[in-house]
């Protein structure tokens, strides 16, 4: 390699002097591995004195070149120096790629840094390690919540489900170290099973454009990555201890990495977390503790032209659910809504009792890649086992036994090819095959999710073309085939009510006394495409335009739900007749990146046909009283909104950050607002950071959430025997707007060149404000969290 460079350098000295030499070579330098731009690289044109350094967007311009072939040597502090041959004919544009050996220890954090990586025509938002460490006591959802356009659907403060531009659950795909998380994400009270402390980098793509991962990410894709490991001999680690006043909880997380110059490395990470009952400003939120453990191991070989790695993680989370939210009937719900305080408040405890969830998620991934002349080929196999136990309050011999027990196994194989068709055209293509098996043992409670087997096959191709230094175009397509083979026991009364005995009589396997065993075998064929362009104005401004079509197969709960969801005290009905929903999202982003004033403005419109939603439709009388019935239905939905980020730098030490997002969702068939759409919210933060005073960082953040004024009326009436009246159960009115103030600070102490200590202190909900959040499923029963003091101690060694 080095000899080639020398030869090229020598050859290029033979310069013809008689040519027209007024041409310009411009281009962009990116990392071969992940496409991120390389700033501060030096380009030397062999045989001349011409030297250039790439700017912070990885760009360079070399002028006064002649129509001939040049050799250019490109070097970067963390990369192997490489020679390139460039043929100049007129003004030429060229993109170079270097292999960037990431210097983990020296990595610079830039909040909300934008790199074009997963999708080149959708703006991406990234959260890096230092920022993530501020959420070490929280959840993945809390960290994502700090980005504009992201909100969350919560069950208390421990089950935090990310919501992107108003969409959540199966419409948000989470890729954990290259593996699509299969953790029964369909349920509104199922949070992603990821330890925020195992993550080094979090990337958010607000749209379905990242087709290499999936074609059904109507809302968006969250890419979670563990740390990249440098190719050099080193041993380093980190231990973080965090303590919280609210919940009287602590957390310890530790990570140790060993790497070799040969490319081999190993990394081990673990977390223990234990929290007791959280507290609202005026009372204890009984049974809201958490008990969480996580361990992850990564072993691999990283060479320029080939490599492999193995990743394994085990995440275990036991979460208490507010005791007062466990209800027997709609009459209880009415009492709970009428009451200002939870119907049950006990003294603080660390113990967890029913209702609670106990979830275990294991993930193993093996990936191998090799670079050939035509590109980089990689093969991945991954296996996931998700075990989910949900405990309700039970009676008799079933006391202490789980009501819901699900075991979901998923095997996936991926074959991907990443290649450059020419200097300016990149192509990514691949195949995916996956097998999933859900098994629900008998718990004495009817299965909410039936036993099923699911087979998926996918194929995609995505290509981008860098036309010149201004324009980049991207196009992609993906096809997915899904086959589901299900065994489901239906209640005979429901089977007949829905007319399934006429429409689906061919599915009946067996008829029992009051149940019907059906075997639905369904096929779904889904296509998705993305089309986009990026225009770089050459200065501070850049424009992203993307149009994506996504298709999503209905998930098992949408198809097969039938019966009482005990923890929610509501009856949920799915529908066998559902077909795939198809979303068209048009998104535009204008961004300005400048040392003084930066912003990004991102309007979008997402039109989804056959959108599946669940909402209350009425009541059902039973011997236990009245239950609200929630039914899934398909409609045509439209979501439109805008995200806005801005930051202003007053001085080297002081900056101001602003974030706001707005989304409106409508049911176009029934001409009414959609349920559970986030209210307009805005965050403003003043940050003081001084590298001269031991990286002292002081941040004051204000968060204002407006009241959601657009919501469907899903209230219903029930009969109350004591008063002999019919009363309205108000389940739709959103709570009032609220304002929270948060403070955060940190300071670093260096012991030696290789070890340092960081101290952090923060307060959330500074004024101990009582509030309720529209998107918190427990808002009917209790206030949200009160003031919390956080203390963080971190050792790097």
């Amino acid at each position: 390699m080095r000899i080639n460079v020398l030869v090229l350098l020598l050859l290029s000295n033979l310069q013809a002097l008689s040519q027209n030499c007024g041409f310009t070579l411009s281009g962009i330098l990116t990392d071969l591995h992940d496409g991120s731009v390389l700033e501060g690289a030096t380009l030397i044109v062999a045989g001349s004195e011409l030297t250039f350094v790439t700017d912070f967007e990885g760009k360079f311009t070399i002028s006064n070149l002649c129509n001939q072939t040049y050799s250019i040597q490109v070097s970067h502090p963390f990369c192997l120096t490489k020679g390139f041959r460039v043929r100049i004919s007129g003004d030429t544009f060229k993109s170079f790629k270097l292999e960037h050996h990431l210097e983990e220890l020296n990595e610079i954090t830039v909040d909300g840094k934008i790199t074009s990586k997963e999708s080149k025509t959708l703006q991406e938002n990234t959260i890096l390690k230092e920022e993530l460490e501020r959420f070490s006591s929280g959840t993945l959802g809390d960290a994502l919540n700090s980005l504009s356009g992201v909100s969350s659907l919560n069950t208390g403060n421990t089950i935090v489900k990310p919501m992107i531009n108003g969409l959540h659950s199966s419409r948000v795909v989470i890729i954990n170290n290259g593996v699509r998380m299969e953790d029964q994400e369909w349920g509104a009270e199922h949070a992603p099973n990821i330890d925020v402390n195992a993550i080094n980098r979090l990337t958010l793509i607000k749209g379905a454009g990242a087709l290499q991962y999936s074609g059904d990410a109507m809302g968006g894709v969250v890419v979670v990555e563990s740390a990249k490991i440098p190719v050099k001999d080193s041993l380093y680690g980190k231990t973080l201890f965090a303590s919280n006043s609210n919940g009287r909880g602590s957390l310890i997380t530790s990570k140790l990495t060993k790497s070799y110059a040969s490319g081999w490395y190993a990394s081990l990470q673990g977390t223990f977390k234990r929290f007791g009952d959280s507290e609202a400003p005026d009372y204890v939120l009984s049974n809201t503790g958490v008990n969480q453990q996580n361990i992850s191991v990564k072993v691999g070989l990283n060479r320029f032209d080939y490599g492999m790695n193995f990743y394994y993680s085990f995440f275990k989370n036991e979460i208490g659910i507010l005791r007062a939210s466990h209800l027997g009937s709609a009459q209880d719900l009415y009492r709970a809504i009428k009451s200002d305080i939870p119907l049950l408040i006990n003294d603080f405890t660390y113990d967890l009792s029913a209702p609670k969830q106990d979830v275990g998620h294991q993930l193993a991934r093996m990936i191998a890649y090799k670079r050939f002349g035509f590109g980089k080929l990689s093969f991945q196999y991954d296996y996931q086992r998700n075990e989910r136990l949900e405990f309700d309050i039970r009676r008799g011999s079933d006391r202490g036994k789980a009501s819901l027990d699900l075991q979901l196994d998923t095997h996936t194989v991926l074959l991907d090819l990443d290649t450059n068709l020419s200097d300016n055209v990149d192509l990514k293509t691949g195949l995916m095959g996956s097998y999933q098996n859900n098994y629900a043992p008998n718990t004495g409670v009817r299965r909410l999710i039936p036993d099923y087997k699911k087979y998926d096959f996918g194929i995609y191709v995505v290509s981008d073309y860098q036309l010149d230094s201004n324009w980049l175009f991207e196009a992609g397509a993906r096809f997915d085939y899904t086959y589901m083979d299900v065994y489901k026991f239906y209640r005979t009364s429901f089977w007949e009510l829905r007319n399934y005995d006429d429409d689906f009589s061919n599915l009946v396997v067996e008829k029992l006394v009051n149940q019907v065993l059906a075997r639905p075998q369904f096929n779904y064929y889904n296509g998705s495409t993305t089309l986009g362009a990026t225009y770089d104005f050459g200065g501070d401004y850049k424009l992203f335009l993307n149009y994506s079509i996504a298709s999503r197969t209905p998930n098992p709960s949408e198809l097969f739900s039938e019966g009482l969801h005990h923890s929610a005290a509501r009856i949920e009905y799915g529908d066998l007749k559902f077909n795939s929903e198809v979303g068209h999202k048009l998104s535009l982003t204008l961004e300005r990146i400048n040392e003084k004033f930066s912003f990004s403005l991102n309007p979008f419109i997402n039109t989804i046909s056959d959108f599946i939603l669940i909402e209350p439709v009425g009541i059902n009388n039973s011997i236990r009283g009245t239950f609200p019935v929630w039914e899934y239905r398909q409609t045509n939905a439209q979501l439109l909104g805008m995200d806005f980020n801005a930051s202003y730098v007053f001085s080297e030490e002081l900056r101001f950050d602003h974030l706001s997002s707005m989304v409106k969702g409508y049911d176009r068939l029934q001409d009414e607002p959609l349920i559970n759409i986030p209210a307009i919210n805005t965050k403003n933060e003043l940050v003081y950071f001084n590298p001269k005073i031991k990286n002292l960082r002081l941040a004051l953040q204000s968060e204002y959430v407006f009241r959601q004024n657009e919501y469907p009326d899903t209230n219903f009436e029930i009969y109350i025997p004591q008063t002999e009246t019919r009363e309205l159960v108000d389940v739709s009115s959103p709570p009032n707007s609220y304002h929270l103030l948060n403070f955060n600070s940190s300071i670093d102490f260096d012991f030696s060149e290789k070890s340092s200590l960081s101290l952090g202190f923060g307060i959330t909900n500074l004024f101990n404000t009582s509030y309720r959040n529209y998107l918190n499923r427990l808002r009917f029963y209790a206030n949200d969290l009160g003031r919390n003091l956080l203390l963080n101690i971190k050792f790097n060694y």
Partner: protein
Amino acid sequence: MRKLNFLATVLFTTLLFVSCSKDDDSTPEPVNEEEVITTLTATLVPAGQGTSITLKSQDLDGDGPNAPVITVSGNLSAGVIYNGTIELLNEMESPAEDITEEIEEEDLDHQFFYTIGGGLDVTTSYENNDSEGNPLGTEFTLVAGAASSGALTFTLRHEPTKPNTGLDDAGGETDISVTFNLTVE
């Protein structure tokens, strides 16, 4: 290239393996719900002469779409004192499971409430207690007053606050709520 072949082989073997595992079909076992109460029967036996009255609410599909079937065997007689007993059954299981026993075993965690409405002139009182001396209410006394008609509601609360002064401060969760329309003649 050898590596490529190897990868391809692994890929297709896995796919093959995956597609072959399709045939191990076995149907899941049916779930018979264990804690469901399908039937409440309150039997009112007159202390002296007269006919017994049976109040029954039966909901054989549990929380399924069918509403409970409510039957009242006859009218109450004015001035008569009735000894009442409540029986709870899960008729989804075969033979039917007697849930009353479970309730009486976990007496500290349960309490029945009787709510009278719509001008019905009757009074009720508890006849059995839990192990701490607070009312349980699977046995009760009903005194029929003057001729009238109205509703009598039986409510069973799970894990109520004990002692309490009635449904309003009892808390807990509703296990049963059944209303019978009665007439005193």
